[in-house]
């Protein structure tokens, strides 16, 4: 019998994978991928909670999250392309203009 806990554990594993990616990767594109992982992990969590409580709000939330992910990708990729045009690299370490 699969319970909510199973799903939430899965969510946690995926989420920490995403965080590892966010922290670890220096390729900006990979950063975007990792963000997608984070969002998807949360989506699973929402859908699971929705199922086990018999409440549709969770699914609606997932739906909106997908919409946000889509727009994030659109804008983010646009910016990334722009940055690549300027600097010729998508290395994160090249982005250090705000050094204190």
């Amino acid at each position, binding site marked *: 019998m699969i319970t909510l806990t199973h799903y939430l554990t899965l969510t946690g594993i995926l989420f920490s994978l995403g965080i590892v990616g966010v922290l670890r990767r220096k390729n900006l594109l990979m950063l975007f991928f990792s963000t997608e992982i984070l969002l998807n992990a949360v989506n699973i969590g929402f859908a699971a909670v929705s199922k086990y409580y018999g*409440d549709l709000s969770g699914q609606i939330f997932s739906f909106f999250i997908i919409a946000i992910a889509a727009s994030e990708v659109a804008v983010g990729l646009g910016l990334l392309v722009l940055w690549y045009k300027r600097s010729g690299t998508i290395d994160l370490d090249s982005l250090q203009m705000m050094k204190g």
Partner: protein
Amino acid sequence: MFEAIAFYTFSILVIGMFGIVVFSKNALYAMSALAGGMIFISGFFFLLDADFLGVVQIVVYTGAVMALYAFGMMFFDSTRDVKENIKFKKIIYTLSVLSAIFTIFILMAPIFSTKIEAIYPTLQGVGNVQMIGLILFTKYLVPFEVAAIMLLAAMIAGIVLVKVKMEETPTNIEVARGEK
């Protein structure tokens, strides 16, 4: 029984795919793995009786988002790997695991404390897509429209940003205009 088998299979697949995304050095592999992971996630949605979400997941993520990434990657010299020197690995893993555990803990906390009452309970004898439609176009109409506007704005932004010519970064354009 079937549920359990499906859950574990999908879990392993998704974790494996996302593991490749996170740890692979090749951007192309990573992207492909991500696309696969997205599709496997939709499997969870079907398992959870969220048919609509599963469909949306496949259509939007694998169809649109991943296509967008694919196009994006064409701009970049993907053969030239980004040299990644990673420091503080232990810290990274500790932090990720800790944050995941805490998040789950918080998510599960209400289960042990209080009973949650459904605001929009699932209806009996009605399909999932129909239910979503009912709620989305009644209770969540305004957020839905706002999301639509946001998507539109994101689309316009993406087009404008990418359209700018190589030499003409936005700041350059402004400078050029100011000079004229």
